[in-house]
């Protein structure tokens, strides 16, 4: 009877929850796609080339490394995801060699020298991005105006954060916040934006200045995948439902960052007072949502326990705030996250779960 059954011998548990590493990676990839498609839509078809360049380079690098160590890791989807995230973090006009170098750096140096998926302590996509950012700062800070705003071909411009940052260096005017500041500097807005803003202002009694809707929807210059906060949020809903990402990191990240911006973000403007920072502006620009939802939550490089995740998210929020408001880089999300990656092993050491039956007082007598 037993001879032909060829039964499997395995250790308990004999049943498993569905889901796998690969399914997680592919789910994240798919949830990112709408934002990527938006990027192609607003920045032109060339962006597709950038995305493909980074993904293909990442996959080829992964295949080469997997071949070297005789493992089959392509189908786990992590290389595609890394490549896609690198593409998302590139300016639309970036020369193709930059995403390729970033992908190869990410896969070969950040991931495989540490033994492949799971071994790395730093988010490969972000490390790759930071590597090329410091190597080719020029092309990496050259932005393209979305087609909707120019109604013609792609035009080089500054990103909103970049414009605010370099503009403030010599600013003597009286704008009370970045959005107003940009409007003053003649930053364009789409028809939809002015329409929706005035509708909101008249119907709900807000006093929003123009531009926020553009920022939320993604009609602003920026990295390919980061501009559309709306689509990034929509994509993340599925990930929250599937529990691929948990609330701790995004919430603590965004909350701490937003709070700090609200308190100190306005001090760089003319009236220099506290508690009037433009939180929405900073949340909707500079890849904050891409970072907080998709990159800081990378399981490999984030803490294990929910307490640790809260600390990690808060730290990332603080660092993003510091770098963005005071540092020499306009956005700061990627640097903040890889800095926090360094702290993760330490956070993990100090946020272990309470063990059952340890330090319990004896009840009897």
């Amino acid at each position, binding site marked *: 009877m037993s001879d032909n059954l060829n039964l499997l011998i395995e250790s308990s548990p004999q049943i498993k929850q569905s889901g796998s590493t690969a399914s997680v990676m592919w789910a994240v990839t798919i949830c990112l796609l709408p934002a990527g498609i938006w990027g192609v839509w607003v920045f032109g078809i060339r962006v597709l080339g950038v995305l493909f360049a980074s993904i293909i380079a990442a996959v080829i690098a992964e295949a080469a490394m997997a071949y070297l160590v005789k493992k089959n890791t392509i189908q786990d989807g992590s290389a595609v995801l890394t490549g896609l995230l690198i593409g998302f973090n590139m300016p639309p006009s970036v020369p193709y060699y930059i995403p390729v170098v970033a992908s190869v750096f990410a896969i070969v*140096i950040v991931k495989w*020298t540490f033994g492949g998926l799971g071994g790395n302590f730093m988010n490969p996509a972000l490390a790759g991005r930071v*590597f090329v950012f*410091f*190597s*080719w*700062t020029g*092309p990496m800070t050259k932005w393209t105006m979305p087609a909707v705003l120019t109604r013609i071909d792609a035009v080089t411009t500054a990103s909103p954060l970049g414009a605010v940052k370099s503009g403030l260096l010599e600013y003597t005017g009286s704008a009370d916040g970045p959005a107003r500041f940009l409007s003053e500097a003649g930053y364009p807005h789409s028809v939809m934006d002015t329409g929706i803003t005035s509708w909101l202002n008249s119907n709900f009694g807000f006093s929003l200045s123009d531009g926020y809707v553009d920022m939320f929807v993604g009609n602003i210059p920026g990295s390919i995948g980061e501009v559309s906060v709306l689509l990034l949020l929509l994509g993340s809903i599925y990930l929250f439902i599937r529990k691929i990402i948990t609330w701790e990191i995004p919430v603590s990240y965004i909350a701490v960052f937003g709070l700090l911006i609200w308190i100190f973000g306005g001090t760089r403007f003319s009236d220099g007072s506290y508690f009037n920072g433009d939180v929405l502006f900073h949340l909707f620009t500079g890849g904050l949502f891409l970072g907080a939802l998709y990159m800081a939550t990378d399981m490999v490089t984030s803490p294990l326990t929910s307490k640790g995740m809260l600390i990690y998210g808060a730290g990332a929020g603080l660092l993003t705030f510091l770098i963005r408001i005071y540092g020499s880089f306009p956005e700061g999300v990627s640097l903040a996250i890889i800095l926090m990656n360094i702290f993760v092993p330490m956070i993990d050491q100090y946020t272990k779960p309470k063990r059952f039956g340890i330090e319990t007082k004896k009840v009897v007598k």
Partner: protein
Amino acid sequence: MLKEFTKGLIKENPVFIIVLGLCPALGVSTKVINSLGMGAGVIFVLLGSNIFVSLLKDFIPDKVRIPAYIVIIASFVTIVEMVMEAFIPALYDSLGVFVPLIVVNCIILGRAEAFANKNTIKASILDALGMGIGFTLALILIALIREVFGLGTITLFPIGSFSGVIEIPGLVDSPVRVFGLAAGALLVMGFLKALFTWIEDIRRVK
């Protein structure tokens, strides 16, 4: 006897195998010329200190061994410093604080402690030359990689009409700048060390 000389080149290369003298190895290796200058300085100091330590090994009391060696080393370093500043000020500037820091280059004290105070002058000289040249070669290797990728150039001595700078087409316009920075130095060092470990492993199995 020749072994004392050759061992420093590869088998006991101070940078890649013994992993000493890292700070200058990484700090100055942004350009090949700097590596050459640093290497020359180290060879000179190493030679001097090895000779004197070897000479004085019976005179120096054990308890103040380290301070005594350091005084000897520091003297030679200061000489290098002054001579370099006087005669090749450009190089002195680009090496910066790393010239006085030759004093604390672990290689020099390490050789004094591990070799010169146990061996004859002749062996110590050979050891110093071998280690010094090994160190210099290692520095040049690191600098070559970092400069080619990080700046797209190879900077050597200007001789006659040759300005001393070789430009690598393609890279010189948009070099991978991180190679020239701290992060690049550490990464390059890590990969070179891995390469040497790998070679060593293959040799050992054979």
